[in-house]
C-alpha cells in the first residue's frame, strides 16, 4: 500500500511515504486534473488513515480504561454493550455526537471552539511521524523523534486556550497548572531520550528499531544493562516524564476531578470534550510507543523475528508482525499507566514542579553524562 519505493514523477515523492498512493493516482488520473493535485490527494488519504488509526486507538483505550479501572476496583466495568462491553466506546461516541453544542455565556467563542481542534491537530501532526510498521507510515522523518516531541508540545497551547476561553476561574487553574507541568517535564523527557539516541546514533524511529534487531528479537533491546547500564534509569525518568506530559495520575492535577471538577475541560461537553479525550489517549499511546521504540526494541520481538525469518524482511507477514508488536508494546505501556492512575493519589502542583526541576532534570543529566562516558570509552571495548 504505502511503501518506500521512489517514483520518478515528482520530486516531492522522496520525502513522503505516500508514494504508492501517488503512483496509483497518477495511473488513473483524468486529463483535467492538474499534476499538483496528486500529492495533495495522497496526503489527504494519508491523513485520513492516521485519523482513523487515532480514532480506533482511542476507542479501544477508553474501553480498556473502563475495564481496567473496573477490575482494579473489584467491579466489572461495561458488560452490556457487546461482549464484555467492547462496543461501549461506539455507544459513547454516538451519545457525544448527539449532545447539545454548549458554549458558555461570556466565553471567548473563537478560542473556545478552536482549542480542542488545535489540541487534536497537534497530536495528529505527531502521529504523522509515527510508523506503524517498517514500511507503513505517513512520512519517514529523519528527525522522527524530534518531530514527535515538538508536535506534542504544541498541545499545551490548545489546553491553555481552553482554560482561558472557558471564562471560568477553575478552568483557568487547570490550564495554568497544565502549562507549568508540561513545560517542567519536557526537559527530563527530552534529556532521558538522549541516552538511547546516543546508542542508536539516529533520530529516525525506524532506524532505532532496526538497531535493536537480532538476538531472537529480544536480547538486543536497549533497556538491557549490557547495552548500557544507564538505560534503565533513563527509562524510569522517561516514564515519569510521560505520565506528567499526558496529565495522567499521579500528575493529573490539571484535570483533577475532585478539586477542579474537570480542570480545563470543565466547560466542554459533547464532541468537543471527546477531542480532548482522544488527544489524551492517543498521546498516551504515542508516548508509550516512542518509549517502546527507544527502550524496548520497537518493532523487534520474538514474533517479528520469527516472521522475518519465515517470510523475509519487508514482506507482508513481517510487517504485520511488526505492527502487532508495536501496538502490543504501546498498549502494555498504556495498561501500566492506567494501573498507576487507579492506585496512586495525586501529587500537588508545587511538589510536581519540585520533582521535575530539582530531581528529575539533574538525574537525567547525570544519566546522559554517564551513558555518554560508557558509550565513548567502555562500549567500544566489546562492540
Amino acid at each position: 500500500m504505502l511503501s518506500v519505493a521512489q517514483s520518478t514523477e515528482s520530486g516531492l515523492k522522496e520525502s513522503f511515504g505516500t508514494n504508492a498512493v501517488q503512483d496509483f493516482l497518477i495511473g488513473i488520473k483524468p486529463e483535467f486534473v492538474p499534476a499538483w493535485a496528486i500529492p495533495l490527494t495522497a496526503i489527504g488519504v494519508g491523513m485520513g488513515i492516521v485519523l482513523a488509526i487515532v480514532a480506533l486507538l482511542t476507542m479501544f483505550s477508553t474501553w480498556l480504561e473502563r475495564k481496567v479501572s473496573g477490575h482494579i476496583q473489584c467491579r466489572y466495568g461495561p458488560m452490556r454493550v457487546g461482549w464484555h462491553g467492547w462496543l461501549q466506546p461506539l455507544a459513547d461516541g454516538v451519545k457525544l455526537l448527539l449532545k447539545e453544542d454548549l458554549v458558555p455565556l461570556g466565553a471567548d467563542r473563537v478560542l473556545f471552539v478552536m482549542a480542542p481542534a488545535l489540541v487534536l491537530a497537534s497530536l495528529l501532526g505527531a502521529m504523522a511521524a509515527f510508523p506503524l510498521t517498517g514500511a507503513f507510515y505517513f512520512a519517514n522523518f529523519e528527525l522522527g523523534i524530534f518531530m514527535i516531541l515538538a508536535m506534542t508540545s504544541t498541545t499545551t497551547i490548545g489546553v491553555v486556550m481552553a482554560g482561558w476561553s472557558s471564562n471560568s476561574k477553575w478552568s483557568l487553574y487547570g490550564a495554568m497548572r497544565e502549562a507549568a507541568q508540561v513545560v517542567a517535564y519536557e526537559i527530563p523527557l527530552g534529556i532521558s531520550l538522549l541516552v538511547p539516541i546516543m546508542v542508536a546514533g539516529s533520530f529516525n524511529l525506524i532506524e532505532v528499531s532496526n538497531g535493536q534487531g537480532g538476538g531472537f528479537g529480544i536480547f538486543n533491546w536497549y533497556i538491557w544493562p549490557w547495552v548500557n547500564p544507564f538505560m534503565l534509569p533513563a527509562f524510569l525518568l522517561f516514564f515519569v516524564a510521560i505520565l506528567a506530559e499526558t496529565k495522567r495520575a499521579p500528575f493529573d492535577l490539571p484535570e483533577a476531578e475532585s478539586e477542579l471538577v474537570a480542570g480545563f475541560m470543565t466547560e466542554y461537553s459533547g464532541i468537543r470534550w471527546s477531542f480532548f479525550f482522544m488527544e489524551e489517549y492517543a498521546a498516551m499511546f504515542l508516548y508509550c510507543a516512542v518509549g517502546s521504540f527507544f527502550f524496548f526494541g520497537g518493532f523487534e520481538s520474538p514474533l517479528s523475528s520469527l516472521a522475518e525469518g519465515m517470510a523475509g524482511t519487508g514482506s507482508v507477514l513481517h510487517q504485520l508482525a511488526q505492527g502487532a508488536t508495536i501496538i502490543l508494546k504501546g498498549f502494555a505501556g498504556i495498561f501500566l499507566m492506567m494501573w498507576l492512575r487507579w492506585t496512586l493519589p495525586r501529587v500537588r502542583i508545587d511538589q510536581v514542579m519540585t520533582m521535575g526541576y530539582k530531581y528529575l532534570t539533574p538525574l537525567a543529566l547525570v544519566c546522559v553524562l554517564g551513558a555518554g562516558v560508557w558509550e565513548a570509552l567502555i562500549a567500544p571495548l566489546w562492540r
Partner: protein
Amino acid sequence: MSTTDTYEPSIAQSKGELLDSGEREYMLDVRTQDMEVNMGPQHPATHGVMRVLIRCDGELVTGAQPHLGYLHRCAEKIGENVEWLQYLPYTDRYDYLAAMNNNLGYSMAVEALMGIEIPRRAMMLRTICAELNRIGSHLIAIGTYGLDIGAITPFLYMFREREWMMALFEKICGARLTYSYIRIGGVFNDAPPGWLSEVEAFCDTFEVKWKEYYDLLMQNHIFVQRTANIGVISREMALDFGLTGPMLRGSNIDWDLRRDTPYELYDEIWKDKAFEIPLASGEKGTLGDTWDRAWVRVMEMMESIKIVRWCLDKVEPGPIIAEIPKTLRIPPGEAYVGIENPRGELGHYVVSDGGKIAVRCRVRGPSFANLAVLEELMPGTLLADAIAIIGSTDIVVGETDR
C-alpha cells in the same frame, strides 16, 4: 467579601529615581489582584452543599469564608412542632452518615428527662448498631478523603464494606441510611435470627480488609506528602474552637466521651479494657496535621470492631424496649446529653414543659463547630491543600446546617 475592588495600575505613581547618569529611572509597580474563587455549592470536594469563598493569590490561599445554610431544613423549629417520637426520623437526617448515633443522642436526652431505665439487651443492640455505624461513617470519611486527594480506588473498596454494613442494618430495621431504629426507651425491633452471627462474620472480614486500607492509603508516600504538615491544629486552637472527636484526638488531646463521661454500657466496656482510644502522635510530620486526623479515624474503626465483639460476647435475650406509654408526655425540665458521634460531640438539649411536644430541641452538631476552624487553617496554604483540609474536618453538611 466585596468583589468590587477596582484595579488601578500604579504606573502613574511610579517613583522616578535620579541615576548617576542623569537619567530618571521609572520602576513599573506591578500590582496583581487576588482572585476570588467560589468553591461553590456544587463541588465534588465539599462533602455536601456548602460554599467556601476562597481568596487566592495564584495557588496560595489568602482568605477563606465558608457560607452555610444551603441544606438548612429547620430541624430545630420542627422539633417544636411535632411530638417526641415523631421527631426521631428528623434526627436521622442531620448527620445522615451516622444516623444511629443521632437517634441514640436524641433518645438519651429524652430518656434523661424521663428518668427511665433501658433494658440491657436494648443497650447492647444500641451499642452494636452505633459502633457499626461509626465504622461506616469513618469508611466514608477516609474514602472520600482519599478521593479528594486523588486516590480513587480505596474509596470503592471501603464502599464494599459499607454495603455489607448497610445490608446488616437493612435486616434489622429495614433502612439503609436513615434508620430511626434507636427509639426512646430502647430499640424498636429485635435482631432477626442469625443477625448476630452475621455481625461476627463482618467483624472477621473487616479486620483483614482494615490492614489493606492502612497499607494502601495511609502509608502511601504520595498521600503522606499531600496530607502531612497541612492544617495543623494546636491544643489551644482546638479547645478555643470547641472541637471534639477525632479533631481533638488528632492533636493528641486525650478526650473521648465514651470513656470520660460514659453512657450506656461504655463504662463496663472500658473497665473490661475492651477498647483503647487512639491518639495521634505526629508520626508523619507535625502533630495535629491532617494525616494524624485521618490516622485517628482509621484506628478508631478497629476499636469499634473490638467494642462490637465485646457486645456480641455478652448479649443475652431479653426485652428490647422499656415500658413507655404510646403518647409520650415527658416531665418538665431540661437536659443536655452529649454523645460521641463519629465526628465529635453530638449534643441534644431538650426542654420540656410536660406536654406532648418539646419546647426546645437544640442540636449541637459537631460538624458546625469543626467547620469554624476552616477560617483559621486555610489562609497560607495552597489550593490543593485547602481541599485536603476541608476533607480532614470530616463534615457532613446536613449536620452543619441542620
